[in-house]
């Protein structure tokens, strides 16, 4: 196994073009496990630790440009107001040591359906900026996941940034695991209210071959909120609508039975998380509305 250590982004792209099978490594929290368990033996390992822009982030007016290697700890500490859903998801990643090393870029590169960042990215709205010596492109995150542990990157591409929409309303993230910390998701759910556009978005993890949005549920909820005048009134949805939303989220799942849980349980749990996160986000939306009006 050869170890590549590009100093700059350009060097990294050149190295990746030269060695398309090279596996990029940043925090190593996923790649090293794969290597240690002998699940993969890459010909080349490319350490991106010295490429400065991957560790930086920039808060713009509408989006946050997140460097692929920015560790979860930084997202929790520095970006919670802009990216509340992702910050909550980051909290559930591994242990403090893992959160100090692991990054969203790694989650996307591995593209495991159980990656904790995915549901939050889907719900917030995000684009993955991939680049190669051929040029750069931005891939909507919902198009990024192409199969179990497969993504839309070409062999010569690297993830540089993730452009994530800044929260314009409350966001939530919930994850079910059989342990109260340091656990891989049995399934996960994220919900973002987007009052500016009067829409909602969802993200489901670990309940289908890829992370996905529950589009029918989003559409249902968007219409229900609009038609009921809820965005303006702040009134909570009728329980029947919340139930329907939860059912549609559960129906969006395509889970399997595995060592972590059964398919039936995953579907059930996604429904419960959808109902609860809807309650929590709507409660804080009302709170914000109220305080805005008072001010």
């Amino acid at each position, binding site marked *: 196994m050869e170890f590549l250590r590009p100093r700059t982004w350009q060097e990294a792209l050149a190295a990746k073009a030269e060695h398309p099978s090279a596996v990029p490594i940043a925090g190593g929290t996923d790649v090293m496990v794969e290597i240690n*368990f002998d699940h993969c033996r890459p010909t080349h390992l490319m350490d991106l630790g010295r490429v400065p822009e991957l560790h930086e982030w920039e808060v713009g007016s509408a989006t946050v440009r997140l460097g692929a290697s920015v560790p979860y700890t930084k997202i929790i500490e520095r970006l919670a107001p802009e990216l509340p859903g992702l910050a909550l998801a980051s909290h559930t990643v591994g242990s403090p040591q893992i959160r100090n090393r692991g990054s969203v870029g790694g989650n996307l590169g591995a593209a495991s359906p159980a990656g904790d960042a995915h549901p939050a990215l889907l719900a917030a709205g995000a684009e993955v900026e991939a680049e190669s010596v051929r040029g750069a492109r931005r891939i909507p995150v919902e198009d990024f996941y192409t199969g179990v542990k497969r993504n839309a990157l070409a062999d010569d591409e690297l993830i540089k940034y993730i452009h994530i929409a800044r929260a314009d309303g409350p966001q939530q993230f919930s994850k079910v695991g059989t342990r109260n910390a340091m*656990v891989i998701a049995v399934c996960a759910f994220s919900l973002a209210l987007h009052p500016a556009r009067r829409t909602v978005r969802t993200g489901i993890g670990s309940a289908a071959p890829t992370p996905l949005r529950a589009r029918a549920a989003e559409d249902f909820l968007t219409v229900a909120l609009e038609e009921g005048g809820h965005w303006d009134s702040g009134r909570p949805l009728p329980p029947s609508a919340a139930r329907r939303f939860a059912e549609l989220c559960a129906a969006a799942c395509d889970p399997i039975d595995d*060592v972590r849980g059964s398919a039936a349980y995953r579907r059930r*749990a996604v429904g*419960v998380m959808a109902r609860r996160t809807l309650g929590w986000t709507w409660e804080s939306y009302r709170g914000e509305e109220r305080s805005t009006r008072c001010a």
Partner: protein
Amino acid sequence: MAGTADTTAATGAGAGARTGTGTAGATAVGARTGTPDGVGASARRPDGTLKVTGEFAYSSDLWHEDMLWGCTLRSPYAHAEIVSVDIGEALAQAGVHTVLTYDDLPAERKNYGLEIKDTPALAHGRVRYHGEPVALVAADHPETARRAAAKIRVEYRELPVVHDEDNALAEDAPLLHAGREDDHAAHVPHPNIVHRQPVVRGDADAAARRADVVVTGTYQVGMQDQAFLGPESGLAVPAEDGGVDLYIATQWLHSDRKQIAPVLGLPEEKVRMTLAGVGGAFGGREDLSMQIHACLLALRTGKPVKMVYNRFESFFGHVHRHPATLRYEHGATRDGRLTHVRCRIVLDGGAYASASPAVVGNAASLSVGPYVVDDVDIEALALYTNNPPCGAMRGFGAVQACFAYEAQLDKLADRLGMDPVELRQRNAMAQGAVMPTGQVVDSPAPVAEILRRVKALPLPPERQWEAAAEGGRGAVDVRALPGGLSNTTRGEGVVRGVGYAVGIKNVGFSEGFDDYSTARVRLEAAGGEPVALVHTAAAEVGQGGVTVHQQIVRTELGVGHVTVHPADTRVGSAGSTSASRQTYVTGGAVRHVCGLVREEVLERGRARFGAHHPAWTSAELLLEGGKVVTSGGEVLASLVEVLGDEPVEAVGEWRHRPTEPFDLTTGQGFGHVQYSFAAHRAVVEVDIELGLVKVVELACAQDVGKAVNPDAVVGQIQGGTTQGLGLAVMEEILVDPSGRVRNPSFTDYLIPTILDTPTIPVDVLELADEHAPYGLRGAGEAPTLSSTPAVLAAIRAATGRELPRVPVRPEHIVDV
């Protein structure tokens, strides 16, 4: 902490109950100086600082110049015929020094085993479980060894897999071990049964007719792993005399050696063993792992060979806790008196016997729990299957039974409309009670009292997630909720449940086993100070045995400075660090040998100074604070003066009182030397919609006879409690129907984190057992028993579900 050294003295643990209690300073005539950090003090561990700072050398840190690395090739199948093995390509790889298979085993004996020698050192013609060792490689780099092992071509032909009771005991079942000649072969009803032990007492049928209420249940316990942190590892160094020196993490050096030497074709004295740093054991190191393999490679290559399993291999490298199916019937009169118990306990022993026969004996003899039941009909057995071999794990057969009988007691209480604790107390055994085996419990058995104590504790406040939260009204601290940081609830769906359980565990090796230990103690003057050396072969696996040995020497010889010699086979056997027995038995040996040393010191003192002071011959003399003193406190001489230039040294064996085997058809017999008891109250919050559990508190009360080191005792109780919690809600090795292990990693074999570990208030009772040194009672295992059923009882209380299986999974709780 209840009780101190005075308790022991007052309850008469004999002359040995003199205890230095660490109260230093009193020098007036008549007051005794004592020796600090003796028995009863929370003396600090000699290895504590090194372990906390990460500097302690574990067996995986061993290193030798020119050493090679060994690697094991394991079977990918649970049951298969080995058609051919081709090592050519592996052997040809640069850096590879040797490749060994069954054909290379040097001696007549090819098999080993704790009780039954049924385990091949390397597979011969057939593999019986997923992960069975087939071939070995030694190379100059671990990665080279691993790659070479992957190049060994083994052709397998898969065989039908024996995976449960039905297909193990079918008439045409494939036999795991045909032509058995072991001690149990003659009495088992089927050759796929390792051992079967009935316990029959009274007349269960007649008693059942007196019952007003009868409850039955079938319970299941999953396969728990010891999950010790230090993986199997060791270093074998070939010696010039043709023997081998083995540095190894194990629980019992001499038992290892007895199994290793014949397979190497060496006399035992040519296999010299030294204990390397052990990172936990919990029973998982009672069987051999890489011991024979490393020695074979070292002897073949003439070079030191190190082997270290990684976590993945470790899951295949040691036995696990027996999964069990337990069918129980309990009867009671309307006033809550147990009439009878019938039960059948089927343990899955996997492919090789390991400790299965003894686990069966425990499960059978302890199957009724700490209750008085005169009429019982009990049967316990262990199967041979193609599942992973199972053997010793903390609680050893008593854990499985306790989960079932405690669920039954709750069911019975519910049927009787009676408080579950009251029902237990009404049937609780006490000193003088008769076990189902006919054995009279002849030391304190405070079963009702420990239940009373956990019940009397105030309950933790409700809705702690609100109290714990910062940020004012409406804020929640998710860490106090089911799901924890995963943020699944703010209180929605959360229901509290409270549950109780109590258990009984035997201490020491049972059923007639000659359970002894050996100690060597030397006392000498060095640099104007008396110093002692204590040398045993007892394996320090993290439990604090080394601390206890120092404390005993301090108390018995009145010497502050005590060095613990590394454990090795240059001294006689200490027996196993298991069965909650080391403080009892090796502690007993150290104390006994200290007595021999003391007598010789006093003899020497009398010879040298007897003429100067009449007390030398007339008074009872003690060694305290580095001096010879009268029982009245008068100092006669310093130890340094008495010892002069010549050390005093003694070696001796010590054994607990004998036990006897259980009768093969009735299970009657004085089978256990001592019993220990713990009770738990579990308080849980259950998210009944998601099936997630937060254990809020697990209070424990346990009688330890005498807390030789109170801090260590509490540590043992908290650790055992947590391990029981793990079995209750998460820990399980999953094996598919083809016998393959599905989750051999800490990614999917989950053990509790600190966020899963509740507050564990511990109430330690010290009711001396007059048969035991210092009155102590083995403490390490009992808390592992009752913790699991207490948690399940609490979850049942919260959910109303039957939950007859552990570990309970979210889908069981929400029932999808």
